[in-house]
């Protein structure tokens, strides 16, 4: 329980109606997509940067932990109020401040929903490519904090590749600006990149300056069915080696196809053991050539069928196959552990084989799909945690999956971050020296360890909390 005095101060800063200690509100801001739950002491909805600054100054002086939150849709617990304290819900800061068509730059507040921003820039012929699966509801602030990815990142890069500058409030309450609206800038350290993917542990994002691209003229979607998982995995690395970078190169294995078969109108023949959904974009004549070249490259790899969408509706129907995956996985088992490992692209076939072996070794169902084009595979360990022993087997499988990805020169997380879910495994990937370096930065910026405490590094507990 927080002191009534602290609640009063918060009310003074943001106004009474934006501070709640009601049980119903604490419950509503206690969870995210990890389904873990930690009750905060108070939920605060600040209305501007200055309010955030005042809150941080107070919290730092009083040693109260603060947990910034966007849509609460993260998969690793980045926004969970693991130590109680203050949930800082950034949803009121939801304005698109400027879309600068002269410079192809936009400035937004962190609470803007990703898809709404995309629609706004597309109206004027511009393009913001990062497209996490949650784009209809996740916020740009959350996307930057987690450095979100998505299918289109194969060609265009991830969130951090589009962030030119930020306005942030530091853990001690200072308001600073990093980077700026220019395409280049090398004065001082690149704090913008440091903030991207820092999971809300180093500062609270209050403004974002975003680089935009011209909206591509056209796109072409194709669905290729393979008779083996090896063929599809090989196709991924062959396409890349063929010096073609499609916009998206999405992969689904046989188990995934089994799951979606009922959820889609498209016919998916029994002999299809893997699927690639490939999209290319750009000038209309260029993409036709690219699509033809891709079809040529994959042909020797056991292609059952290639379907190329001719209209927007047909393209939509092909994407529907991919979009129905997440929900239909429940058919395998009720509990899903979605790991987002990433390996060098040429290693995708080897990684898929490793996962198969891990599935057999631990006797757990594993379903693979994801953004194979950038080596980012969503490996889903499916269990029924109510059955005794299954959780243990899943944990062991997950550890082996991480180990396997690291052996191939990969990483345990391509786009979801560490949060609380992957914190126990960080030492598998990062050296002691690297962890010490990072923690030195964290300590220097957040001396009282009040900002998003308990994330990334397990051993850190909030200081000054009883």
């Amino acid at each position: 329980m927080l002191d009534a005095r602290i609640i009063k101060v918060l009310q003074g800063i943001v106004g009474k109606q934006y501070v709640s200690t009601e049980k119903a509100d604490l419950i509503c801001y206690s969870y995210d997509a990890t389904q873990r739950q930690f009750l905060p002491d108070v939920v605060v909805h600040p209305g501007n940067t200055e309010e955030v600054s005042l809150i941080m100054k107070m919290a730092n002086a009083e040693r109260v932990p603060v947990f910034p939150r966007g849509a609460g849709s993260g998969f690793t617990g980045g926004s969970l109020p693991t130590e109680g304290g203050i949930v800082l819900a950034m949803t009121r800061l939801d304005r698109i401040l400027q879309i600068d068509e002269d410079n192809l730059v936009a400035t937004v507040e962190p609470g803007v929903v990703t898809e709404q921003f995309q629609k706004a820039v597309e109206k004027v012929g511009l393009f913001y490519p990062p497209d996490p699966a949650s784009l209809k509801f996740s916020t740009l602030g959350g996307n930057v904090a987690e450095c979100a990815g998505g299918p289109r990142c194969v060609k265009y890069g991830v969130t951090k590749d589009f962030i030119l500058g930020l306005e942030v409030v530091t853990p001690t309450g200072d308001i600073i600006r990093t980077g700026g609206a220019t395409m280049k800038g090398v004065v001082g350290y690149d704090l913008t990149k440091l903030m991207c993917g820092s999971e809300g542990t180093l500062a609270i994002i209050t403004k974002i300056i975003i680089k935009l691209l011209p909206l591509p003229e056209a796109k072409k979607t194709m669905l290729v069915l393979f008779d083996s998982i090896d063929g599809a995995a090989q196709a991924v690395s062959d396409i890349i080696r063929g010096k073609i970078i499609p916009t998206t190169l999405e992969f689904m294995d046989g188990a995934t196809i089994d799951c979606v078969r009922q959820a889609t109108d498209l016919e998916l023949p029994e002999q299809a053991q893997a699927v690639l959904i490939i999209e290319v974009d750009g000038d209309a004549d260029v993409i036709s050539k690219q699509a033809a070249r891709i079809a040529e490259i994959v042909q020797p790899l056991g292609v059952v069928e290639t379907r190329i969408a001719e209209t927007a509706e047909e393209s939509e129907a092909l994407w529907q196959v991919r979009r129905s995956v997440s929900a239909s996985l429940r058919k395998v088992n009720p509990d899903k552990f979605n790991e987002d490992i990433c390996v060098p692209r040429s290693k995708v076939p080897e990684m898929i084989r490793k996962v198969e072996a891990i599935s057999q070794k631990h006797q757990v169902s594993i379903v693979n799909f994801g953004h194979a084009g950038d080596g980012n595979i969503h490996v889903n360990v499916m269990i029924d945690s109510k059955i005794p022993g299954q959780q243990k087997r899943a944990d062991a499988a997950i550890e082996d999956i991480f180990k396997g990805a690291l052996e191939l020169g990969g990483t345990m997380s391509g786009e979801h971050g560490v949060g609380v879910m992957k914190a126990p495994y960080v030492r598998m990937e990062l050296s002691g020296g690297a962890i010490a370096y990072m923690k030195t930065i964290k300590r220097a910026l957040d001396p009282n360890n009040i900002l998003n405490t308990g994330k990334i590094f397990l051993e850190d507990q909030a200081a000054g909390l009883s």
Partner: protein
Amino acid sequence: MKKLKKLQEYREEIEQCVKCGACRAHCPVFGAEKHEGRVARGKVALAGALLDGEIDLEKKLLEDMSQCLLCGSCYAQCPNKVPTEEIVAAVRREIAAKKGLSTFGKGLTSVLKNPSLMNTLAKTGGVLSSLLFKKLPADSGLRLRFPAPFISGDRTLPPIAAKPFREQHPEVIEGQPGRPTVAFFTGCGINYMYPAIGEALLRALKFIGVTVIIPAEQGCCGLPAVSAGSGDVVEALAARNLKALTARPVDFVVTACASCNAGLGKIYADLEGEYADLAERTKDIFVFLVEQGLPERLAVLPASAEKVRVTYHDPCHLRTRGITREPRAILKALPQVEYVEMEAAGSCCGLGGTYSVYHYETSKKIGAKKAGHISASGADTVATDCPGCIMQLQDSLNHAGEDVRVCHILDLLMDVLPEEAPA
């Protein structure tokens, strides 16, 4: 009759929510209020906490549970198909059982049981005439929707019909031999406020030679009572309607109100047995007309020199149940119509049964968004398939100062169909 499910019986559905947050993109109330307690994920979490005894029926929870349009938009888009509108309705029944109906059902029970409140109603006049309450049967859903003390002064409402639709017509209107027989479930909106829609429906059915039964004993479908958490009333109304609609043999029951269609088609299905049979035979009027080949028959009508630009608003209670093509098919087949699709045609108008009565400010915000889409479409007319939506759209467009005609698709049919059926 199977009783409506209790909150405890929804535990499995509540556990199906994986807290992904997808509902944040689709909930009209969340879109206006941006608060987690307003969205399906929050409500499901609260319902779960209620079941686990982690929270009581405290004020904030009641407020969050009242902030739901029961439109089903979240369910339609939920990857795990968590039936939030059912869960919220079950929580409301729980609240009504433990705290009395006063929280949500002020309209029905408290108005009827409290003579002084009835007097207040009579005195408020003006906005919604007290005459309405004299004319409305005690169990009409309109009483729930518009308990006069809660209606603010700046709301536009349609006048009440001098004579209810059902009293203006015989129970049986013979069609041509060999054609189907349907029962027309009018619903309260058409019966008391928009009898012209009912007239248009009769004209359309006459045009294709269908025999129409208008059972005099039918009542409110029960959806407003579901919204209010009044399970007993829902069950009583369902029993009454079953009796009225099955008194004569009919092939189908048709509705021209999206909410009634959901009431009969979905709620009655949950009551199982003969109620489910009735639900199965209930059809939206445009689904029926398309099945009967009306679009092809409209092609023979003379072309209109002057076209009206018409856009269509999808009522949630049809859209979330997959009925979106047929109303458009009829509109596009009309000779005087130049059809334009608006952006977000499927976004809620903001009425939500009892919702707009208790949360008029939020309801207006949702309505204002809709009015913006209608205006941006460039249409002179917005047509829909629900008297409730018509009322709300009219109010929203009035507030926005937009001069756009709001009507039922049947009204547009009435404009071109001949009075006498073709031989």
